[in-house]
């Protein structure tokens, strides 16, 4: 009898990986079009007067001349 288990596992893993990347890409694109993701230029445009913009992985800190606000 031929051994199919390894092949089935490998094919399943590949299918899930491809679906993962495709669905992830679609969701990121959707989020970008909804405005949930912004480019660095867009943020700089929004806070022209800011003294400094610090970018972290999940947040952006805008340092104004007088106050410091975290968004």
């Amino acid at each position, binding site marked *: 009898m031929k051994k199919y*288990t390894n092949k089935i596992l490998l094919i399943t893993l590949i299918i899930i*990986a491809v679906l993962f990347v495709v669905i992830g890409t679609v969701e990121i694109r959707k989020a970008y079009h909804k405005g949930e993701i912004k480019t660095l230029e867009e943020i700089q445009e929004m806070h022209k007067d800011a003294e400094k913009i610090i*970018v972290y992985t*999940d947040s952006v800190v805008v340092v104004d001349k007088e106050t410091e606000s975290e968004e």
Partner: protein
Amino acid sequence: MNTKNIANLLKSYFIENWKTDLFQFGILAAIVLFGTIMNGRGGNLNFPIMVSLIFLMIYPERLFRNLHSNSPKIHYLSIPASNGEKVVTNMLLANIYYIVGLVISCVLGLVLAHLYLKVRGYDGLCLHNFMFDGNGAGILMIFASLAVFFFGSIYFRRRTTLSTIGVGMLIGMIFSVLVTLTLWLNGLTLIPKDAAFGDYIWSFDSSISISDTMEKVMMYVGLSVSIIYFYALSFLRLKETEA
């Protein structure tokens, strides 16, 4: 599928293993008893559930231990029952019998802890903390994990539980690479590099997620499919081992 064969397999399992099972259930009840008493009267269900889950995930290794060495393997494979019947029998044992045993042991441990505290003059356990309000997806997740360990116990030859955990971690690492790849393909990055941060960054209220209903449906369907998938694969692997 002959129910008589399944009944015979169950009978032979209980004859061979009732002492070990009783011992394990006793150990679990003792762990829950002492753990709960030490945890204090205001404890909750997390501790008994965690310990039970560890017991449950190790259990399939014992169910198929005959497959892990040569001479018992030949004996097990030559038992007059089909591979389907053997898989179904072990499924019944892992998904019903052992889970019921674990629940009874936990309840016993908790009741004994409650009585002990009462005898010592305390108020006893705050029993409302022990009302289980687990959701369907959580329960389905437990059954899906059990199916994975079940398959692992047939697939691997030695230290099946550890091997399954190891491969699971490896697949997790592959998927974390895929997350980075997906972000990179879309001009996003998770690594902050000051000005050279990338074309796009996460916005302030970034929460990319599909709708709740869709997420739930996908979760339930995905988990159910994975349970069926791993048991079907277990059957196939057992057939291959026989060949």
